[in-house]
């Protein structure tokens, strides 16, 4: 497979599980607001580059984490670039996380978005 196949918008799922780290609750509200605005701008910029943000869902009732964000990116590298920008903006210092990436299976993500061929 070549990188040319990696440029179809929306073909890489990225799941982001998160919860606040304890010291987040000690951060003054004004500072929290500044950080959240910076992270929101990074998310907005990713969407400007073609990423699709499908929303944040509350899962605390059946999970170690509080919420899960659902994104699709053109490639796993694009997902990494978004995540790396968030990390550089101190996001992961205030929020614990677990992430997943997944590629769309052939024929299961709409026309043109196929990524993985069934070989058996």
């Amino acid at each position: 497979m070549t990188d040319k196949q990696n440029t179809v918008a929306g073909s890489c799922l990225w799941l982001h599980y998160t919860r606040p780290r304890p010291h987040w609750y000690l951060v003054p509200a004004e500072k929290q607001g500044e950080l959240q605005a910076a992270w929101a701008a990074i998310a907005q910029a990713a969407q400007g580059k073609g990423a699709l943000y499908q929303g944040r869902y509350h899962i605390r009732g059946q999970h170690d984490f509080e919420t899960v964000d659902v994104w699709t990116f053109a490639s796993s590298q694009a997902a990494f670039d978004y995540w790396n920008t968030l990390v550089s903006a101190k996001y992961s210092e205030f929020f614990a996380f677990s992430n997943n990436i997944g590629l769309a299976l052939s024929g299961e993500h709409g026309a043109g978005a196929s990524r993985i061929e069934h070989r058996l």
Partner: protein
Amino acid sequence: MTSLTGDTDVFTSDANPRACIVLTGKRQDDLPGIYGAQERDAILAVFQALKAEGWVLSQRHVFDPSAPNDPVGLDTGFTHDHDIAAVFEAPTLDAALQGTVRLEQAGWARLFRTEWMIGLREFAPVFGERASNDHAWAFLALWEWNDQWCEATPQARTEYDFECDEAFKGDLAHDVNISGRQRLDVAHHWHHLGYWEISGPDVADSAIRGHERVADFKFTTSRHIVGRIRPMAELIAPFGSIKAIA
């Protein structure tokens, strides 16, 4: 790419980071007709294709590019809940992820229940003092910064990094070769992998005591895996054909 923390005396950024693939796998129930020589051959064919596509299938090849690049893994069943572990490298993240699916579809999924972890190399390899010694074993450290590290000041983190560097220098004195550092946080809760070549489990234990002395684990949560390095062809042999390891 930005490293999560800066360079230290021991570690420097890798100028050309490749994607990495880490796996732990547990053999599934041995029911008739599920996994045999046909699937084994298909998996090995995928490995050959991946090698041709630029994958690194043996970390020995990272330390010494003239060393064979045939796939190897760690035999870990003697002390871990999983039977094997392995570390590969791929040209890109997407190639890494696609490769795992190709292996699974070739028959890997019939043999192992697997956790695949995918990320990027961020630090270059580091050689031990007698780097060419026999390294028949490997040690994997999966780890993440804990809440206390996240709360700490930048100065406290830098001081901590250099304290840990003392322990890493001790590792090198144990003839440990460290295959740089891999970053896994884009697709896991683990932040990093460290891969060491070692001469045996006692070396890992002794070296980790050095890390405990400098309080390495006050700022990290980690999982350590020790295994004997074996050819992948042996590790994925169908049950009936497994031969006793001399």
